């Protein structure tokens, strides 16, 4: 009696398994790509930058009866869709207050900010308090193209403070933190 042929013919052979795996892999990739296309993508990171800051040197103040004002134009860039940003200023005196120091003596100063370049006055800043709702015209992160500057930093020593100040050389640091809006 001759042997009967096998009742079931294997669908695959060792040599035919590879195409099936490849098809499964392609299917998984296709599903993944489709999911990636359909799912909402995360918003582009909103980045900001402040540059073109210069030290503020009042020098020797001979006339203590008038306000001493120093303003500078700086570059603030915002990648936010609205180009919006906020600014927070902190001084180097105790509590972050805006004051210069000479030994144990303090010389308070005011800080103002304008979202336009070339200004000699602006919105008064308070230490550690954020000024919001600002918009930049900068089109390049360090203003190398487009507007050369986009904001004004104004530092004021008031005559009322100067006329009562102790003699001496005063110094301090003002730190500005920019955030997107």
């Amino acid at each position, binding site marked *: 009696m001759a042997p009967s042929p096998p009742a079931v013919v294997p669908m695959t052979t060792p040599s035919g398994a590879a195409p099936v795996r490849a098809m499964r892999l392609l299917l998984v990739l296709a599903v993944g790509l489709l999911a990636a296309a359909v799912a909402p993508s995360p918003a582009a990171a909103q980045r900001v930058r402040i540059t073109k800051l210069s030290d503020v040197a009042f020098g020797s103040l001979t006339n203590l009866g008038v306000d001493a004002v120093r303003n500078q134009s700086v570059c603030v860039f915002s990648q936010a869709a609205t180009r919006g940003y906020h600014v927070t200023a902190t001084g180097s005196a105790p509590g972050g207050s805006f004051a210069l120091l000479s030994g144990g003596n303090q*010389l308070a100063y005011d800080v103002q900010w304008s979202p336009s370049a070339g200004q000699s006055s602006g919105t008064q800043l308070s230490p550690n308090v954020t000024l919001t709702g600002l918009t930049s015209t900068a089109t390049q992160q360090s203003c190398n193209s487009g507007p050369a500057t986009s904001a004004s*930093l104004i*530092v004021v020593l008031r005559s009322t403070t100067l006329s*009562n100040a*102790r003699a001496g050389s005063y*110094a*301090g*640091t003002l730190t*500005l933190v920019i955030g997107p809006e």
Partner: protein
Amino acid sequence: MVRKYIPSVMAALAVLASAGTAQAATQGSLGATSTGSVSISASVPNRVRISGLSDVAFTNADPSLNASNAQNVCVWSNTSTKGYRVTATGSGAANAFTLANASLTVPYTVEWSASSGQTSGTALAVGTPLTGQTSLATNSNCASGPSSSASLIVKIAATDLQTMTAATNYTGTLTLLVAPE
């Protein structure tokens, strides 16, 4: 061998030399927030101020008694010691302390005290600085803190009053120059 250490020594000297200098402005980098800083410096020179002076009027002075008028004044000095000197000049010949009516003259004396509320002090000589004075004033015109910080005393001796012509006005100006010490 010696040459080998020269660059290191020079670098160390450079670090030491820069230790006392003010920090330069720092520029922000592009990021979720961006931080920059500026150094601020100012120098306040030595300054003084005299204020709170009142005119002196000897009205119907009794020639049998010495006449004296003391007033509190404000002298402010912003030096580290709050020191000052005072120089007085009159309106008489060669800046003498004299009152006059045409050719009639009468001498007076001037005294100074570095404390308020005094009726006597150190006698001033015409044009000669009285040095080593110290002020307690904390405000340039004594608007806050002590309301006055020195005493000005003007006197006319009875013997001089007796040389004056009755019912005749003698006038003059006393000038006080205050300088920081």
